[in-house]
Every structure is written in structure tokens, then in C-alpha cells.
């Protein structure tokens, strides 16, 4: 099993005719993902390497039965692209777009929650979601993942996610699903959204959680782990040396005042029973030990 996406998931790519959309959309298809349609207004009737393109998400969903969307459009257009997908009944929407204004993002989050509570937005500004061997939506290099579980991964950071996938795969440990929730201030999917699904997924036996400075999502996740999870969690938090008041690359990675520090997050996670690695390699080592004991 896996969470969010699997071998049955049918994906449309919003922005398939653009450079990035084409590149990643076709890579996702090459991986084995069922990429059934593209959407670009005004390009209906054309195709991208055999994938039919439609004018609207509704049309694409009606014709193909797609239940997931990969949004690869610029920040100006991304919120409306997500709205369109949600309105067409798409269940999983992955937005990799970086640079969406905060006011647009918080408005979009609340709108989706109120009008389309069954829609799960992953991102924005995330690498996407991959259930190895089944479905890859986003920019993760599929070849560094290994099918079969037993580890689920949820992460705020792209490259650290790749590193975690790679180290586990090198050690012969497979993954059920790996979700990059993204580094923006108001992500559509939270750590808890993923942890709860991993907890419920029978094939996931242990979870890696990668956080970073800023906000309190890791502390909230720690409370959830303590109260609701019996599967082992191994964590890593980046940004121990980050100075307050500076954005460390991601819009959400900023320590303001005394809140959002790596130390506070590490302490909260340890208090919740999670094992916390001091660096990504130590995190992978800890997970190796956990898996060996399963």
C-alpha cells in the first residue's frame, strides 16, 4: 500500500505544453505514472508526445477520469490553476510552483478547506509525491527510490528528501510513499496529514520526518506522534545554526523572535518519542536500526 497516490492514480499535467511541464510530465510518465492528459488553455486538440491536451481541467477529467493533477505553472497563475482542479473534483493536486505570494497562498488554503474539503493540495513549492514503483508526481528522480516499503517519508525540504530516499535505497530499505510538503509558510498538506495516513497504512512500518526551522509545524507533529502514533518515527531538523530573522532559502524557513528554532523542534520530537538524527546520515543510520528490529 501507499498513501495519496498509487498505480491506479490517473494524472493530468496543468502546464504540460510548457518547458518544465513537458520535461517533468514526460519523466513522470516514463517512470510508469498514468499521465493521461495535459491542460493548457487554448491548446485543446494538440498533444505532447501522445498525451492529449485540453483547454480546461473539467474537460480533461470528463474525458479521462483523472483524479490527480500536477500543477506546473508560474506563481501568478498557480492559485487559479489549483482552484480549477479542485472545482473539477480532482482529489490530489501537486503544486511545485515556487514564489506564490503569501496572501494568495493563505486565501487559497482556506478556500479549499471550506469549498473542497476532500481535495488534498500538496505544496506549493514542493518536490511532489512518489509511491515508488507505482506513481511519481513531481520532480523527484524516481531512480533513487525503492519500491516495497516499509518506510514512509514526509519532508519540508526537497534535496534532503532525495538524500533520505537515496540513503535508504542504498541500504536496501524500500519506501511506501515519500511526500514533499514544501517549504512555504502555508503548505496545503501538513506533517500531520501525512503522519496520520502513514499510521493507517498497513505497509508503512516506520516513518522518516524531515523538518526545518520556522513556524511550529514540527511541534504540532510531535504532539500528534505522542498522542496518536505507535509506529516508530525518525526525524531530522535542519537549521540549528540559522540566525534569527533571516530567510534560509525557503519562504517558510525563518526564525522569528524565539519561535521556530531547530532546538525547540528537536526537543519536542524527542519528548514525543521520535529518534532525532544530528545530520541526514545519522537519520538514515537510525532508520536502518529501526528497520532491522521490525
Amino acid at each position, binding site marked *: 500500500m501507499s498513501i495519496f497516490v498509487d498505480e491506479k492514480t490517473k494524472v493530468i499535467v496543468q502546464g504540460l505544453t510548457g518547458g518544465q511541464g513537458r520535461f517533468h510530465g514526460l519523466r513522470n510518465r516514463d517512470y510508469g505514472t498514468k499521465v493521461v492528459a495535459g491542460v493548457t488553455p487554448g491548446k485543446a486538440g494538440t498533444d505532447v508526445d501522445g498525451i492529449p491536451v485540453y483547454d480546461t481541467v473539467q474537460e480533461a477529467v470528463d474525458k479521462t477520469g483523472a483524479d490527480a493533477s500536477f500543477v506546473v505553472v508560474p506563481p501568478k497563475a498557480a492559485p487559479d490553476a489549483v482552484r480549477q482542479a479542485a472545482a473539477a473534483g480532482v482529489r490530489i493536486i501537486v503544486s511545485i510552483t515556487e514564489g506564490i505570494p503569501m496572501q494568495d497562498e493563505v486565501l487559497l488554503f*482556506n478556500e479549499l478547506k471550506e469549498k473542497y474539503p476532500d481535495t488534498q493540495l500538496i505544496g506549493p513549492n514542493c518536490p511532489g509525491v512518489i509511491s515508488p514503483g507505482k506513481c511519481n508526481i513531481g520532480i523527484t528522480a524516481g531512480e533513487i527510490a525503492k519500491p516495497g516499503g516499509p518506510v514512509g517519508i514526509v519532508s519540508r*525540504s526537497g*534535496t534532503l528528501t532525495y538524500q533520505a530516499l537515496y540513503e535508504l535505497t542504498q541500504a536496501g530499505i524500500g519506501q511506501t510513499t515519500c511526500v514533499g510538503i514544501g517549504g512555504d509558510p502555508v503548505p496545503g498538506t501538513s506533517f500531520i496529514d501525512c503522519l496520520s495516513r502513514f499510521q493507517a497504512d498497513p505497509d508503512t512500518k516506520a516513518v522518516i520526518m524531515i523538518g526545518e526551522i520556522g513556524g511550529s509545524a514540527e511541534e*504540532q507533529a510531535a504532539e500528534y506522534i505522542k498522542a496518536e502514533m505507535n509506529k516508530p518515527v525518525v526525524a531530522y531538523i535542519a537549521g540549528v545554526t540559522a540566525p534569527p530573522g533571516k530567510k534560509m*532559502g525557503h519562504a517558510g524557513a525563518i526564525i522569528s523572535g*524565539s519561535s521556530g528554532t531547530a532546538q525547540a523542534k528537536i526537543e519536542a520530537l524527542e519528548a514525543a518519542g521520535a529518534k532525532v538524527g544530528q545530520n541526514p546520515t545519522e537519520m538514515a543510520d537510525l532508520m536502518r536500526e529501526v528497520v532491522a528490529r521490525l
Partner: protein
Amino acid sequence: MDLFEYQGKQYFARFGIPVSAGGVADSVDEAVNQADKAGYPVVVKAQVQVGGRGKAGGIKLADDADQVREHASNILGMDIKGHVVRRLWIEHASDIDKEYYASFTLDRSEKKLLGMLSSQGGVEIEAVADKSPEAIARIHIDPVEGLSAEATRDWVAKANLDPKAVDGTVDILQKLYKCFVEGDADLVEINPLILTPEGKVHALDAKVTLDDNAAFRHPEWDEFRGLEQLDPRDALAKEKGLQYVGLDGTVGIIANGAGLAMSTCDVVNQVGGSPANFLDIGGGANAEVMANALEVINTDEKVQAIFINIFGGITRGDEVANGIVQALSSVDIRPPIVIRLDGTNAEEGRAILKDTESDRFISKPTMLEAARTAVELAGGTVK
């Protein structure tokens, strides 16, 4: 982008928020000129983007032109916590009856907008939050619904302001919310928001952080640019389009991805060294980007060793290695370099680097080994 106080007041004024009459001055003569226009007494205020200006002597009251001259010449050029004062804001001094605090920002844990209002203004709001959290009236706003006049009135009622201040505060908060949302700010803060003996409410200070992601729909922000006080390293990185944050250490850091760059800083620290910077070159890591990154770090005199940490995902290790070799041939780098290359096609990449390796360009297979070598080369003691 953080605005200076005077820019924040100009921004406020666009949304109809009352501010004191005043003007900007870059010299003593100009300061006197502005003071004459604003009408005495005036306040001479240092324009720096750091808190604690008043305590540092950067805010002074002046009753006449001679006093303006004296204060302006003292404050211009003054160093306030590492920020040199280049500009003054001169405004008519207000009589103050009460000092309040008002702000809007994003509450990330609630995923809603957050308004804060306090009857205890004029001091750091963090101090108020610590000592008497009940003195801050908070409101969570669903951006879909916005902030109605009625909700604003209920919110203000909870803050126990002077009854004379209520109507004026409700009006200002409605305008401030508009400035926050339509003005695409991450933060708008008025501290203090004052009540005058005549019963008028207005903004005596302005703190505004604009959301750079929204710059595409705000051409008017251009006039605020170019005056930010950047560290020279930050300025060069910005010009080159790199995600760079200057730190104080001796190991220069280049990594692909924000998380990995942060993690690299942490690992250097963990093995006993100190990072000189955070630098994310993004996913691509081609020769040009790498050359730009090396150039920025090369200008940092404190850097004694450079640690390049690349994890190949979609960008393959061999492409990255070729980029680095090309970059090294185009930039003359002072400190020695340690590189860790891992991920997709890492072995092919390391094979390419092998020909370039020397005692000044060392390849290590893991992040920890590479960090230890970099710290050693920087003259540190490895833990």
C-alpha cells in the same frame, strides 16, 4: 523586503492611515529644511532597519533649528547595532496621551491571518507577550471572509483602550488590514499607535515587510528599492540571483537546495567548525551558477576553506562535476575547496573530478568526511 520607517509611513499614507507630517533628509541642511516645513517641535529619527534606535540615541526631540542641526549632525553617520545611519526622517512632534500597539501578520500554525492590538504600546510586543499576554487582544481572520467593521469593533472592545480612542482605532485597523492584504505585506506593525490629548489616533511609527513574491503586481515598489542596507557579500549574491545569507564563520558553503544548504551549515558546526554563509544554488548547478557562487564566497575574506555539497537528483552527478571543473577554470579561488558529490551518477561525477583533484581541491564521499576536511583546512579543531 523590509521598509524603512519613512517608507512604511509613505505606504501607510496610500491606504489612508494617518501619520505625522514630515520629510526625509540625508544632510544636516536638509534636516533643518524639513523641520521648518513640519513645524517645531520636531523629532529627528534615524532611518535604520533595526530595533532599539531610541535607546541608542537615534531619536531626538528638537525645539528649534539649532537643535535640529545639532541632533542631525550627531545622528547622521552614527552606528546603531552595525547599521550606519545615512538618512533621517524629520516629523512634527506629537503630543502623546496613550501609546498602543497594532499589527497584522500570518499565523502559520492556525493558517489564518492574525491581528494583534494592545493597550501597552511603545515597547517590544514580545516583552508584553511574555509579561502580560492578557494585554494583547488577538483576532484570527479567515482571508476568505476578510475583516468586517463589526468584527473590528468587537476586537477593539477587548483591548481596553481609552474610550476616546475606539472610533479612530477601528478606522485605522480597517485601513491597516487593507494595507496588509492588498498591499501584499508579510507584516504591518504600528508601535506606537498613539492617542493625542485632542482625541486623535495616528501612527507614530511604521514597520512594514513586503512579500517579495508579490513584487510582480506592485511596480510602485521599485521606488523602495536600492536603499536596503546590505552586507557587500549579500549585495553581490543578490546581483547574481543567488540565495545567500552571510554568517560569521570561516567555512564557505555551497549546496543545492535550501534544506541541504542549511544542513551543511549545521554539519560544519557539528564537527567543530563555523559556517561563513548559507548559499543555495538550486537544482541546476550548472557551470555559470557554480562560478557565480564561488565568486561570491571568494570575496569573503574570513573564508579559509570552501565546502561544496551537491546531491544529484534530476541533475546528474556527472553534469554537476563538469560544471564545477568549468567553473574552477573560470574563477581564481583563494581558499582550498572540499567537495562532496552524491546521488544520481555520483561515481561518474567523482571520476570527472579526479583529474582536477589536488591538495587545494579535495573530493570526499560523505557529508561528514567532507565537513571534517573543510574544518581542518580552515584551521579549526575537528570534533
